[in-house]
Each structure stands twice: as C-alpha cells, then as structure tokens.
C-alpha cells in the first residue's frame, strides 16, 4: 500500500502541473487581455495617453512577456518583476477588474466553497449509506419502495429548481430569506463563534439542494451493487452454514458493494462543484462560482486562473482520496487489465 501511495502521489503532481498549464492556456485563449480591452474603450473615448499607459501596465504586470514565462512567473517557479512571487509563494496575482490582489478579492470564498462542498459530500454519504443498505437488505419492502420513489424525485429534480422552490417556500411560509451563507452583520468580519453558527445555519438548505441528486444516485448504486453481491454463491453458502445475517453482510458483501460507492468520491466532487456554481448564483451564496463566472467574462486572468486551479486541485485531491480508499478496500485486478508486469 505504501508503494501504491508513493506511485499515486507521483502521478498526482504532474497531473496538477498539466492542469495548471491547461488552465493558464485557457484563460489566455481569448484574443487580447483585460488591459487591452479596457484601453480599447479609453482610446474610443479619446484618451490620447491610453497607448502609453497600456504599454506601461502591460510591462508592470508582465503581460508583454512570452506566455511560457508568464506561466512560470504565475506559478512561482520563475522570477518576475518582484522576484519569485506566484502561486507557490501564496501570491495569487492581481485582479484587474477589482484593482486589488486576488487573495483580497477572493477573501474567504475559497474556504466557504471548500466547506460547502465538503459538508455536502458528508451529507451525501451519511444519508445514502444507511438508506442504500436498508433498501438492498429489505428489497421490495414498503421502505424500499418509498426510498426508491424519493430517490427518483431527487435524481430528476435539477438543483437550481429545488433551490428556487425552497427559497419560495421559506419566504412564503416562514417569512425567512435563506439566501447567502451567513447573516449580513458577519459579512467581511473575522471568524467568530457567532459567525460560525450563522454559517452552519445558512448551510443547511444549500447542502440539501446541492446534495440531493448525488444522494439519490448513491442510494441507487449502493442498492444495486449490494443486491448483486447478496445473490452470489458465497453468500448462499455462508447462509446455508448458518452464519448470522449481520456478520455475513458486514464481512464481504457490503465491503465488495462499497467499491463503486467509494470510487464515486472522485466523480462526485466535480459534479458538486459545477452544480454548486449554479446554485450559488440562484441562492446568492458567497462561494467561488459566481465570481469565477464574472472573472471569465471579463478576462480577469489571474482571478479566473486562481479559481480554476483551486477547483481542479480539489478534484485531483478527491480522485486521489478515492483511489487510495479503493486500493485499501479492494485491491483486486479489474477486467481487461494485466495480471503482472
């Protein structure tokens, strides 16, 4: 397992590097940049000094340098105008749109995004695991049918629609606004116990909204996998020999059925992040999604790049955790793969 861990880490590092290259290329792909777009507007309005100002700012921010050098400076592996000052040094760059360092613009949005998505993931697993096991063990019971019905509704309902419905119901019947991730008095304040409690209270609805479809999908997968395992010959043999149901269930079938459940961690994260971006717009959540959309539209390259890199890194880490868990749980050769080197 140690060898696998080391190999997997070594795979993850170039993956992150390639993602950072692709991210940088993507944000550079549209013609021009934020400054040239701004300057075009100034020239159109008759500002004669605009060209000189543009040249100065392009030099100041290193936008006149080749793309490869810009990338290396942005990552922090090549010295720029201020020495080594990039992602690896904790300098996320400059937001042209807000005219502030990116880390000041971002504030606690990245942390809140992480918190929201992590909590959603816990919610998905905490809810889907017992229900998935129950519906498989009690197949065709009333509980199974009821959970299956709820699961299908969860799968079929788009997140943003559920968010709108909950917003409407909460406002109409309870007179409360559930938008945002904290009460207004805590916005921009340092983290305190009161702020933390407020975040927890506001997070309940977004977590349910973002996590519903994932939960429903997980329940269906776990149920199907466990039913497959429960019908295998070794289970029949163990039953015939009088092994207690609970012990039998926990020893092998559940363990085997958990594989796709665990493997889905990696797929669940990007789905939740992209899903939460839309929900964040609908529910006015101060997460990374809406700001990322705005930064991409205005070609605010360092702001957009920081968000994209963060989200990609989160996904890669999710896949890493998922692969490790899967290798620990069931290191079995899969169909179509080779037996040995």
């Amino acid at each position: 397992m140690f060898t696998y861990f080391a190999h997997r880490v070594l795979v993850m590092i170039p993956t992150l590097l390639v993602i950072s290259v692709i991210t940088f290329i993507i944000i550079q792909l549209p013609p021009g940049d934020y400054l040239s777009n701004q300057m075009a507007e100034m020239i159109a309005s008759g500002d004669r000094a605009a060209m000189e100002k543009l040249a100065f700012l392009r030099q100041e921010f290193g936008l006149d340098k080749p793309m490869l050098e810009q990338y290396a400076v942005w990552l922090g592996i090549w010295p720029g105008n201020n020495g080594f000052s990039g992602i690896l040094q904790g300098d996320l760059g400059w937001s042209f749109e807000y005219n502030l360092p990116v880390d000041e613009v971002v504030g606690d949005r990245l942390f809140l995004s992480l918190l929201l998505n992590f909590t959603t993931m816990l919610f998905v697993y905490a809810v889907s695991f017992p229900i998935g096991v129950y519906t498989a063990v009690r197949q065709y019971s009333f509980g199974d049918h009821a959970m299956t019905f709820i699961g299908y509704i969860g799968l079929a309902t788009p997140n943003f629609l559920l968010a709108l419905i909950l917003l409407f119901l909460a406002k109409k019947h309870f007179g409360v606004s559930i938008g945002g991730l904290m009460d207004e008095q805590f916005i921009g304040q340092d983290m305190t116990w009161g702020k933390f409690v407020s975040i927890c209270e506001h997070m309940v609805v977004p977590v349910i909204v973002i996590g519903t479809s994932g939960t429903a999908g997980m329940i269906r997968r776990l149920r199907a996998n466990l039913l497959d395992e429960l019908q295998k010959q070794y289970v029949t043999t163990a039953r015939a020999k009088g092994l207690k149901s609970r012990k039998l269930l926990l020893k092998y079938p559940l363990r085997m059925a958990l594989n796709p459940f665990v493997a889905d961690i990696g797929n669940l994260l990007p789905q939740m992040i992209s899903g939460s971006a839309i929900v964040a717009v609908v529910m006015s959540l101060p997460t990374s999604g809406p700001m990322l959309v705005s930064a991409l539209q205005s070609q605010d390259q360092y702001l957009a790049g920081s968000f994209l890199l963060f989200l990609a890194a989160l996904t890669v880490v999710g896949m890493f955790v998922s692969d490790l868990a899967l290798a620990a749980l069931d290191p079995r050769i899969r169909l179509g793969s080779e037996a040995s080197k």
Partner: protein
Amino acid sequence: MMSASENHRYPLKSLVADYIRAAVGVFLPIALMLFTDLLPLVFYAMAALVVLFGIYGLRTAWRHGTVLAVDEDGVRQEGPLGGLLDRNIAWPEMRDFRLRYYSTRRDGSDGWMHLILRDANGGRIRLDSNLPGFDGIVGRAHAVALDRGLSIDPTSATNLAAIGLGAEEIQTATSTPLDKQYPS
C-alpha cells in the same frame, strides 16, 4: 515444478523505474525548497514529499539487496543489513495469504501484485510481481494455504484467477470449516 530450494533477487532492470521515481520525488521538492521562497504550507508539503520518497528510495535499495529463498520448509527473506530485518515463514506456520493488485491507471492496466504472507508469530513477508518467479512462489504459497484450509478472501481469489490459479477455491469452498472461511 519448483526445485527443493530456489533463490530469487529483484533484478536492477525491474528497479530502475523505482529509483528514478525516488530521485524525482526527493530532488524536485528539494530544488523548489532551495531556490524559491515557498509559502510555509507548500514548504511543509514539499518536505513531506522528500520524506515520503526518501523512504521509498530506501525501500527500493533494500529490495535491491534482498534475496528471497523458497524451499520445502518455507520462505526466507534475507536483506542486505546482515541479518537485521531478515524474515522467515515456515509453511506449517503460515496463517495468512493475501494477493493484492495495484494500478495507478484508470483502466487498471500495467499494475503490479503484492503477495503478503503472515505466520502465527506475527512474522510477515511481502513481495511484489517484479520478482522473477513471482507466479511460482504465489502458486506454492497458495497450495500451502489450501492444504492448511486457510481462508482466501474474494480479492485474493480474483487475483489468483487472473494469474491462472485458484480454480480449487470453488471445490474447497464447501469443505473449508466455516470459522476459517469467515474468521472474526
């Protein structure tokens, strides 16, 4: 059929890739730590990588100097440290047999296998499929496991089937005592 006693070594060719991995994993983070002014969090992450791949490199070197002797009595792992960390498992005392498969690829291809043997005294020998004669050692250990009525978990059974072993599992499944098939 295996002879009375056989010695196996990891050839350098099969370990070159591991040495390269260890070198890259150690020297790249060190270069970043020395030549760039890293954020403390990133610095500690790089230091952790150096430790991780340092251990990985030492393990590779240890495997490089290890001789695995298999005979009628059991299996012995003799390392390069003059008896320190040497291990020995006698066949009659073997208590656990596990065959694991790992791959870093999405489709599960191009992976490697680990055979883990344990005895009643807590002794443990682990070898991987880079070792020439690996399949033969697995076959021998598997035969001993069957003779002793040891439980073969479904993961090991699947991996055994992949290298052409383990058909006997189906035959012995009903004759193995329940407490050995499903040890608590």
